[in-house]
């Protein structure tokens, strides 16, 4: 079984929390642990924020979110915008890299996505848009034990 969902919403900051709630409602079918769910929501929030702030530069546009999982419990989430694209993806993904638009940005968005998910791929073309595809293996209860173990060993 391959479960698939697609969602398309306006590139408004108010929809960042909507996207988090939507991906959580889809991913809950995999019975993730609370830390896994928090990771997914945070990574999606980063990708949607990037689409709104950098892709569309806070102008009108549409953001698409698709998500899939199958029997192997691998969750794939893609966030797509038709915005301005990224000229140099490798540089943009460096920690603390920011476009320097004067706003207070941490430059940690891609870093958070990479840390909280198992894999992040970015496909971007200047003036055509960006697709960020993130994958995470949802371990469920096993993951809970792993989190506890990691907590214990610090």
């Amino acid at each position, binding site marked *: 079984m391959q479960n698939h969902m697609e969602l398309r919403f306006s590139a408004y900051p108010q929809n960042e929390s909507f996207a988090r709630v939507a991906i959580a409602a889809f991913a809950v079918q995999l019975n993730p642990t609370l830390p896994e769910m928090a990771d997914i929501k945070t990574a999606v929030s980063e990708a949607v*924020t990037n689409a709104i702030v950098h892709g569309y530069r806070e102008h009108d546009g549409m953001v698409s979110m698709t998500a899939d999982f199958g029997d192997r419990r691998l969750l794939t989430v893609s966030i797509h915008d038709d915005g301005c694209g990224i000229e140099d993806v490798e540089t943009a993904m460096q920690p603390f890299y920011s476009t320097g638009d004067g706003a207070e*940005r*941490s430059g940690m968005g891609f870093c958070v996505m990479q*840390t909280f998910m198992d894999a992040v791929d970015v496909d971007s073309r200047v003036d055509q848009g960006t697709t960020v595809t993130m994958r995470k293996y949802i371990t469920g209860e096993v993951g809970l034990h792993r989190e506890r173990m990691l907590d214990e060993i610090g």
Partner: protein
Amino acid sequence: MVQESPLYGSVTVVVAGELDHCTASQIRRQLDGILEDPSITHLCLDLENLTFMDSSGIGVLLGRLRVLQQRGGMLSVKNMQPPIEKLFRLTGLQRVIGVEKNAKGVR
């Protein structure tokens, strides 16, 4: 956003709800309003009821830290929920922002 000021120059502010790009500007404005008082040198954020934060929140915290450092002050947080604590740990934020021991046993 509730304020307590038990000590001169020190203020504790409760930040509740969600801190993302959408809410960042409002929370930034409120914190900057508090920091307009130049006598404040220690801002402590009580995050017990902050249920979500992403890197937009990191930007807000680092911006306020900069303001406080310019006047020789410091920024600290307390009562973080586990996901926010993880964000702090993985981005190295706890190296520049003081993390006070959880007063209410929140983990």
